[in-house]
């Protein structure tokens, strides 16, 4: 299959599912379409030779985060009927300003020249050993610090979600 065809399909999928996240009435549907969106982005990663990241992406986002989201939606018993809605006025304003942002972003991207293309990236660029070497040599300290971040996030989550005793 043509790589551009795959790109088309994946892009269309991600944009459509993203739109669905925003405009879906039921929170459940939003979550589910976000998962679809994340899978399509993982596909993009594979196409860009970032195989390791693609795997991580699926594990972290689709596997962990979205499951957490889903649980929360169910825990809080959110559904179409409880869903709050904004007035039409604000909705239109939201769409217009979002579109405006997109246009200015695109315009500013066009205004900036891209740097010259380097020699074609080797397909094994995104392999575990490459990323791993980079991570454990140049970015060792941030890597270790991120573990502290996780611990604190974990504790925070537990403390916050715990029922308060009165």
């Amino acid at each position, binding site marked *: 299959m043509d*790589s*551009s*065809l795959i*790109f*088309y399909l994946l*892009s269309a999928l*991600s*944009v459509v599912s*993203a*739109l669905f*996240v*925003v405009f879906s009435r039921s*929170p459940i549907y939003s979550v589910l379409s*976000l998962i679809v969106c994340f899978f399509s*982005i993982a596909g*993009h*990663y594979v196409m*860009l030779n*970032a195989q390791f*990241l693609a795997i*991580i*992406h699926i594990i*972290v*986002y689709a596997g*962990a*985060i979205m499951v957490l*989201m889903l649980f*929360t939606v169910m825990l*809080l018993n*959110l559904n179409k009927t409880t*869903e*709050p*809605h904004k007035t039409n006025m604000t909705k239109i*304003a*939201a*769409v217009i*300003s*979002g579109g405006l*942002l*997109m246009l200015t*972003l*695109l315009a500013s*991207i066009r205004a900036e020249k891209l740097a010259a293309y*380097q*020699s*074609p*990236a080797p397909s094994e*660029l*995104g392999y575990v050993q*490459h990323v791993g070497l980079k*991570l454990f040599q140049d*970015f060792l300290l941030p890597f270790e610090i991120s573990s502290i*971040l*996780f611990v*604190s*996030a974990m504790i925070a*989550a*537990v403390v*916050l*979600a715990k029922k308060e005793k009165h």
Partner: protein
Amino acid sequence: MTNLLQTPEATQNWYLLLSTVLFSIGVIGVLFRRNALIILMCVELMLNAVNLLLVSISAYSGNVDGQVFVFFIMVVAAAEVAVGLALMVSIYRSIGSIDINVLNKLKW
């Protein structure tokens, strides 16, 4: 169907376009919805749009640094979601809603 991805520049441009669109959809979502959980999801979407851009640039410039960056963004996102969802649960418990228009106690 013509091959859009003939040259690296063209590829890059398309990825730029894609991630801009995804990012903007995320922004519209944040503005559009009142449900804090959906807003959190839209923020995730925006993060992913940026991630995609980083990975594409990493591929374009042949430098793995971009991917490492994405890795760290994921780390932060995971932590953020954990805390964010916990906050939401606790807010829901005390107020009974996660409608952001109700959560306006922090004003002048």
